[in-house]
């Protein structure tokens, strides 16, 4: 019986191809929109997550602006961190220098220049490919040396940077090491974590004529300890400055969570809007099923005369509505994938500096399909109930 019901539903859909297609449009558009939006959201989340992963999610960043005349010395931060070896792994000042990097006559305005400690390379996941990193001695002696990223080495020195000099602002530095690339696609390296020059923070502080660093990177022993580590840092800084202001402690994982939840919120809102189309599609199905019930009144009468019970007639129309809507769902899923693939080709051309892909999830596909079948059943039920309740005598007389 279920087989016959299903087969007849499919036959009916097939014999009214164009009408069924128009009926399905709302569902197709709705499902497509949901698939693409969810895919876009996934892509954005992944892109954010991967850019944060470059930075390391076990890093806490500390900004110390000072409060009134009080300031925090680099040594104070070190001793705060050293007092809690169970929480903290390492610390490094990150003293940014805004001067432009120059090699010969070429300027590299996107290159970031940071003064760091000997721990920074390991903390940030850099490895030295050629030469050496920054040593403790470099710090104590304020040496005018630096380590450069893969981009600078490749573009400015043709890969042979070690031993060469580089000009930052008005000062010259000797390059002692080149870092392994983090970004594998060389066309995406400009402005990335490979477009970087690292020097001893003591040198950086002296050059920029400041007495203390205003920002630090701190790594924790485990990501689970992040909130505890944050509290320890906040309390320590509060004590040093005797104030609640003048410092800021943020963890990368917190920022990642924040960004992700923002993206999720936007995706949820957009999905809700797309879902309105599903609702409208459902009403369209209900409307056409009403018409179908009227058209097939005589058929319903015949079937009832031949012994069809109410639930048989109900099943016939609900199945047809659900099949129509499920077919719409499948077409919508297909179209959604097609558009996603298309977007993946077009997006890199429009936004060359961002790694973004539209990746529809299997979950969203399953949900979209489930919802479209559900809508068919829901909106098909009322017309089907009307058909099931028809009086067989009147239905048989209907022309």
């Amino acid at each position, binding site marked *: *019986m279920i087989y*016959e019901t299903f087969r*007849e539903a499919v*036959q*009916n859909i097939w*014999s009214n191809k164009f009408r069924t297609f128009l009926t399905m449009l709302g569902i197709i558009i709705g499902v497509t929109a949901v698939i693409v939006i969810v895919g876009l959201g996934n892509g954005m989340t992944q892109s954010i997550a991967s850019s944060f992963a470059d930075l390391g999610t076990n890093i806490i960043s500390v900004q110390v602006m000072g409060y009134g005349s009080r300031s925090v010395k680099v040594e104070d931060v070190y001793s705060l961190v050293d007092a809690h070896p169970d929480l903290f792994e390492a610390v490094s000042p990150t003293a940014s220098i805004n001067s432009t990097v120059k090699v010969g006559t070429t300027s590299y305005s996107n290159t970031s220049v940071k003064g760091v400690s000997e721990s920074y390379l390991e903390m940030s996941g850099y490895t030295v490919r050629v030469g050496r990193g920054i040593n403790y001695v470099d710090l104590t002696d304020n040496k005018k040396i630096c380590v450069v990223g893969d981009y600078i080495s490749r573009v400015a020195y043709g890969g042979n940077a070690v031993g060469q000099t580089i000009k930052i602002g008005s000062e010259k530095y000797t390059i002692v090491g080149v870092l392994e690339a983090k970004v594998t696609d060389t066309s995406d390296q400009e402005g990335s974590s490979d477009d970087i020059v690292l020097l001893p923070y003591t040198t950086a502080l002296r050059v920029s004529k400041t007495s203390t660093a205003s920002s630090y990177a701190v790594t924790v022993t485990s990501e689970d300890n992040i909130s505890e580590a944050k509290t320890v840092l906040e309390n320590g800084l509060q004590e040093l400055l005797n104030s609640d202001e003048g410092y800021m402690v943020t963890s990368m994982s917190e920022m990642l969570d924040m960004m992700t939840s923002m993206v999720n919120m936007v995706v949820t809102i957009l999905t809700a809007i797309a879902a309105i189309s599903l609702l409208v599609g459902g009403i369209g199905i209900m409307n056409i099923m009403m018409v179908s019930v009227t058209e097939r009144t*005589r*058929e319903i*009468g*015949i*079937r*009832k*005369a*031949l*012994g*069809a*019970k*109410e*639930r*048989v007639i109900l099943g016939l129309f609900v199945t047809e509505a659900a099949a129509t809507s499920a077919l719409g769902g499948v077409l919508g899923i297909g179209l959604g994938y097609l558009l996603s693939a298309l977007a993946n080709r077009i997006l890199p051309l429009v936004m060359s500096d961002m790694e973004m892909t539209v990746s529809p999830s299997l979950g969203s596909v399953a949900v979209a399909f489930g919802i479209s079948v559900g809508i068919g059943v829901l909106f098909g039920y009322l017309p089907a109930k009307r058909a099931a309740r028809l009086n*067989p*005598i009147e239905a*048989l007389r209907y022309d």
Partner: protein
Amino acid sequence: MSALIEFDHVCKYYQMGDTLVKAADHISMQINKGEFVAIVGQSGSGKSTCMNIIGCLDVPTAGTYKLNGRDVGRMSRDELAEIRNELLGFIFQQYNLLPKLSLIENVEVPLVYAGVPRGERRRRAAAALERVGLGDKLRNKPNQLSGGQQQRVSIARALAGRPAVILADEPTGALDSHTGREVLKMLQELHRQGNTVVLITHDNSIAVQAQRIIRLEDGHVVYDGDAHAPEAVVQPGCAIRTEQEESAS
């Protein structure tokens, strides 16, 4: 022999605006297994109401109707559907085949509702179509057939469910006289094979093909007896008075 169809003071009243229409007014009759009965009457005589009640498409307002010993008046809509499926085979004036289904699928419909397994269903439907001489057109659609052939399909459909009663509502109404006669012959043949056939018609010349005639007028039975008795075929307007009416006057 117990009665297959048993009407005991069956009434069917409709409210039409201010007037109460008595479509069936205390009709009592019995039809036994194996009979070939024609229910005759002009339009408005109550024969359609009678046919709807016999066919379990409608239930009486008052009185009892027993089909095969079961009281139909107390049944739910789904129970009525089950009874129709099990005990009745309908033959309609307009054939009432489902246009999108092939002939064999049309004949299978009542068997699907009876829950007959597919293989047996196929076999029985094919055999029924064979019996009405359409064994070579199983896959055709109804609109590829003449009216007479379509009516034969509907006879096959009625037969396939092995019903207790074959109920034919003006089966020749849409056919020319030649094919009409063929259909009637087929009904007579079914009767000879032991089926109970109830024929509903307004046409005396068709009614006399039956064994017995029940004539209705204004919701009353005015004649019930041998189809070949002279008083069975009376012109409307000069109806003979029944015993009931004579005693009433």
